[in-house]
C-alpha cells in the first residue's frame, strides 16, 4: 500500500500493531491488571523479572495495566475518530449538496459548536452525569470532534459541485442522495481518511487527559491517563509509574499522527 511507503509510516504502523499485539496476548502472558496481590508489601515495586515495569500503589502489575490500558485507549480513540468523521462528513456533504439557507444554518451551527473547547464540553457533561459510562464517553468524544472535518468535507464538496461532471449529473436529474453517495463521497473519501487517522491521535490525547482528571475512563478499568494520574503523587519515589504510561501514550499518538500524514501524502494529487 502506498500509505506504508516511507520508513516512518512503517515504524508508526508497527508501533500501533505492537500495542495491539501486547493487549491481545496480555491475558495469557501477564498477570491480571485488576488483581491486588499484596496491597501492603507489593506496593510501588521497581522493575523486576516478575514485574517488568514494577507495580503501582495498589500493587497491581504495571505492564499488565499498560497493556490493558493501551487496548482501551486505542479502541476509544479509533471509535471516537470514526464517529467524528462520519458525523462531519455527513453534515459537510449534506450542507454542500443542499446549499442555500440550510447550508448557512448548518455551517453557522458548526461554527457555534466549534467554539466550545472540547475538554470543557466533555467535562461539563461529566459534571452533569457523574456516572457516565464508557460508551457515552466515546460518543461525546466523537460528537465534539467533527467540526473541522465538516468544514473540509463541505469545502471540497462545494468545489466538486461546480465541476462539469457534477453539473452534468444534476442536469440529468440525479437526486440529492445519489449525488452525495455516488459523486461526492468517493472524491472526499481521501480527506475523510486523513481526518480519521489524525482524529485518532487527538481523541486518545483527550481521553487520556480526561482520565487524568478523573472524568474519563473510570477505575478500576486502566487507562494510560489515569495511570499517569495515579503515578503523579509518587513521582520522586516511583517515577516509572508515570514514565511508562506517558511514553506509551506519546508513542501511540505520534504513531497515529504519522499514519495520518502518510494517508494524506498517499491521497495528495501532487505526489500521485
Amino acid at each position: 500500500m502506498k500509505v506504508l511507503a516511507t520508513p516512518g509510516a512503517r515504524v508508526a504502523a508497527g508501533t500501533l500493531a505492537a500495542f495491539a499485539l501486547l493487549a491481545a496476548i496480555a491475558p495469557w502472558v501477564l498477570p491480571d491488571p485488576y488483581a491486588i496481590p499484596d496491597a501492603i508489601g507489593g506496593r510501588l515495586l521497581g522493575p523486576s523479572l516478575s514485574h517488568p515495569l514494577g507495580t503501582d500503589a495498589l500493587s497491581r502489575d504495571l505492564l499488565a495495566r499498560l497493556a490493558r490500558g493501551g487496548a482501551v485507549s486505542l479502541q476509544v480513540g479509533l471509535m471516537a475518530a470514526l464517529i467524528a468523521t462520519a458525523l462531519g462528513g455527513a453534515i459537510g456533504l449534506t450542507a454542500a449538496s443542499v446549499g442555500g439557507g440550510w447550508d448557512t444554518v448548518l455551517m453557522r451551527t458548526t461554527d457555534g459548536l466549534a467554539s466550545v473547547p472540547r475538554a470543557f464540553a466533555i467535562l461539563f457533561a461529566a459534571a452533569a452525569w457523574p456516572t457516565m459510562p464508557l460508551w457515552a464517553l466515546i460518543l461525546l468524544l466523537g460528537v465534539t470532534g467533527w467540526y473541522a472535518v465538516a468544514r473540509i468535507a463541505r469545502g471540497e464538496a462545494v468545489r466538486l459541485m461546480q465541476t462539469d461532471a457534477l453539473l452534468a449529473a444534476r442536469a440529468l436529474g440525479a437526486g440529492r442522495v445519489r449525488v452525495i453517495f455516488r459523486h461526492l463521497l468517493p472524491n472526499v473519501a481521501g480527506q475523510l481518511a486523513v481526518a480519521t487517522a489524525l482524529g485518532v491521535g487527538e481523541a486518545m490525547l483527550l481521553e487520556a487527559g480526561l482520565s487524568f482528571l478523573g472524568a474519563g475512563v473510570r477505575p478500576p478499568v486502566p487507562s494510560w491517563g489515569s495511570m499517569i494520574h495515579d503515578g503523579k503523587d509518587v513521582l520522586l519515589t516511583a517515577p516509572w509509574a508515570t514514565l511508562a504510561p506517558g511514553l506509551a501514550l506519546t508513542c501511540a499518538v505520534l504513531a497515529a499522527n504519522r499514519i495520518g500524514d502518510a494517508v494524506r501524502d498517499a491521497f495528495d494529487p501532487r505526489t500521485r
Partner: protein
Amino acid sequence: MSRWLLRRAAQGALTWGIAATALFLLVRLLPGDPLASAADLPPETRDSLARLYGLDQPLLTQLHHFVRGLLHGDLGVSILHGRPVTELIRDHLPPTLLLGASVLVADLAIALWLGTRLAARAGSVTDRWTMRALLTAHGLPPFWLGLLLVWLFALVWRILPAGGITDPMLHADTGLLARAVDVARHLFLPWLTLTLTGVVVPLRHHREAVIEALDADWVRSARARGVPEGEVLTRHASRAALTPILMVAGLWLPMILTGAVLVETTFAWPGLGWLMAESVGGRDYPVATACVLLGTAAVVFGSFVADLAQRLLDPRVAE
C-alpha cells in the same frame, strides 16, 4: 468600520448563543438530575439554582433566565463552595488570562519568527528536524510533560516551585516587584508546557504560507529591484503571509483552552480550567456550566479579535 464591528459583534453573540443552546440541550439528553447534589442547600438557594440551571423548565425559559442572570451578574451559588458563582469566576479568571495570554503571545511570536526562518530553508536538515521535534512535542500529553518538568525543575533541581500561583509563605508586605517575580516563577513551567506543546499549530501554517509566498510574483519583483534577501523574507513573504495564521485562530484558541484545563490541574494553577476540573469531581453543576460558557465566550471573543486584526493588517480584506 463601525458597521462591520457591530455586525461582527452580533455574529459573535449569535455564535455564542448557538453554543449555549446546544450545551443546555445536551444536558437535557443526559440521564439524572445534575442538581441532585444541591439537595442539602437551603430552599431559596435551591430555587434560584433551579431557575438558572434546572432542566424541568422549557429550554427557552431557562435560556432567558440564564442570560438575565448573566447580565445582572447573578449566576447562582456554587454547590461545592457555597459562594456566588460570579465571585468564583472573578477570582479564577485572572490566572487563566495570564497563562493564556502569555502562551498566545509566545506561540505567535515563535510561529512567526521561526516559521519564516524555516520556510526560507524549507527541505533542509534544520527545517526537517526542527519540524519533527515540534511535532513530537505536540504529540506529548501536556499533563505528562508538565509532570516531567515538575519532576525535573521542582523535585530534582529544586529551582522552581512545584505548583500554585504564589508562594503561600510570602510575607504580607512584600513589594510589588517581588510579588511579580514570585508569580513569574510559578508561571514559568505551566507556560512552558503549553507553549511547547502548542506552538507547532500556528507555526506549521505560517511556514507553509511563507513557502507559498516566496514563490509569489511580487517576491520575484522585489528581488528584481535589488531588495536584500532578509527584507524579502520579512517584508514581502512573511508580511503577506500573516492572514493564514489569523484565520487559524478560530481553530487554535479552543485547543489552547483545552490544554489549559489539563495544565492548570497539573500545576494547581488556580484558573478557570482548574475550577472546571474541580467542579466535575465536586458535582458542582452551576460552576461547570458557568465555566464552559465562559470558555466558549473567550473563544468567540478571540475569534473576533483575530478577524479584526486581519482586517487591519490586510488591506484587501476590507474591500
